[in-house]
């Protein structure tokens, strides 16, 4: 056994501390930092996760560009598609976070986190924005790939800042949705099935591949309540300069994220028992 340090560990635990906003932000930062550290240690996941959006852009995008059958208001189809695929890449990463939370529950990690002086909402927010960190790496991959394919996306720093905000909010929303479902099903197998069952409908019932106007009436209703549609609209507006209702898009994404964090926090307690 190694020598014990001369001085005992200092007893921070005795101090009663109020949980102010600064401390909550510090906790969210701590959980996001863990995600960055994991990505730094294992980059293979980044490559693996880049395959699917690459296929959408390279195979689906280039082929459908030739058809010219989808009305995109004068924008080349590949340009129209790129923000949609960017949105899809971030959503698909986030929607499986529930599986990770169930794994953490089974491994005792979740209990350990829940025994720290961290409110449930702060834990969920931390997880949500950690998903955002992964979403941003995916967005970067799609951005570079789109540039290589000749799509001219905006490089305006302010617009890119807007893209970061949209990706973070959307990833946070879908991560919380996934944690909520995880809190209901409590099993990795069921969660995997549900994740697969909802990802493609979310994608197809949005404006990622085609404009909402050409959808049948019933699907238009679904598309209008699907937060992914607002994400795609904002990304198109910011990256291509197409008409977008940015204040509405941000309001919907922020509002949906706030509700999702509150709901997922309630279900986290169920996961912890």
């Amino acid at each position, binding site marked *: *056994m*190694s*020598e*014990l*340090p001369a*001085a*005992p*560990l*200092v*007893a*921070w*635990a*005795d*101090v*009663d*501390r109020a*949980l102010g906003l600064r*401390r909550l932000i*510090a*906790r969210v*930062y*701590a*959980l996001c*930092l*863990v995600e960055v*550290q*994991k990505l730094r*240690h*294992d980059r293979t996941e980044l490559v693996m996760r880049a395959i699917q959006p690459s296929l959408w852009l390279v195979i689906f995008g280039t082929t459908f560009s030739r058809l010219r059958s989808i009305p995109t208001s004068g924008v080349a189809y590949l340009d129209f598609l790129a923000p949609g695929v960017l949105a899809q890449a971030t959503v698909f990463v986030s929607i499986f976070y529930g599986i990770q939370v169930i794994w953490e529950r*089974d*491994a*005792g*990690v979740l*209990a*350990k*986190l*829940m*025994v*720290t*002086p*961290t*409110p449930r909402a702060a834990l969920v927010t931390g997880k949500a924005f950690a998903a955002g960190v992964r979403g941003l790496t995916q967005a970067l991959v799609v951005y570079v790939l789109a540039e290589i394919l000749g799509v001219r996306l905006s490089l305006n720093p302010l617009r890119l800042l807007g893209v970061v905000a949209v990706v973070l909010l959307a990833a946070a929303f879908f991560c919380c949705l996934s944690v909520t479902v995880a809190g209901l099903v409590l099993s990795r197998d069921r969660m995997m099935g549900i994740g697969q069952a909802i990802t493609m409908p979310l994608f197809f019932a949005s404006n990622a591949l085609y404009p909402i106007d050409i959808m049948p009436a019933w699907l238009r209703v679904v598309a209008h309540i699907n937060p992914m549609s607002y994400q795609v609209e904002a990304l198109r507006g910011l990256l291509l300069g197409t008409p977008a209702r940015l204040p509405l898009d941000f309001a919907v994404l922020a509002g949906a994220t706030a509700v999702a964090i509150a709901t997922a926090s309630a279900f986290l307690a169920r996961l*912890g*028992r």
Partner: protein
Amino acid sequence: MAGAEEPAVACRGLRYRFGETLAVDGVDMTVRAGEIFGLLGPNGAGKTTTIRAIITLLPVPLGVITVFGRDVAKRQMAVRRMIGYVPQQLSADGSLTGVENVSLFARLFDVPRQVRGQQVSAALELMGLSDVSQRLAGTYSGGMIRRLELAQALVSSPRLLILDEPTIGLDPVARAGVWERIVAVREQTGMTVLVTTHYMDEAEQTCDRVALMHRGTIRALGTPAELIAGLAGQSGQLASELSLDDVFRAYSGADSIQDEEPQGGIASVRATRRTARRVG
């Protein structure tokens, strides 16, 4: 602020039910400040449920459990700040290095930035992991992972360290290493340790007092020597011929296969085997 003489943990009439199953049925127990207290019992006795109620993971009514004078139903954040918890499963993150694993908990417990690095290094050194702190935890042996989890629990200098089956699945050398360090930390800091274990030899050697749980209630409580002497008195055998194992059998009825607890069912066995498999 709670006084220094206050017990580390006080449970009064703790009951907890999962659906139809009464997991804990009126547990009364006091853990004194500074002692190593063992909570023993067969699978499904209610040990882990009791622990989970103490660490604020399960809802309990007001006035049932206090930790250093703070009611766990009312002052959850204050209670959590005083607790270091190591669950039964191997819970360190294999995709992070040792130092990253410990730093996360230093941040979540608000260890100030100026001393965070020092505190993380001290916790790792205390557990004999300084040399491997930059390696991914996924490359550690089972014993090293357990010690890493202890470092995670100790980095905030908790007043109460709670360990749920800390040596399950470990080989005898690794078990000895883990206990050696737990005892050393207690001696150095005066920290209270509440531990559940199936290994009676460990409890006999290291615990100041133990409580034997069976079917959700505490059947016996005292020092290992007192419990052995009590059994000797009842059975007419010499205390020197008896061990805590015999006390465990006498109170839990674990001699009988029919007496195996239904609560320690497939989920519990699966979790235990998963842990054992992970420690290799």
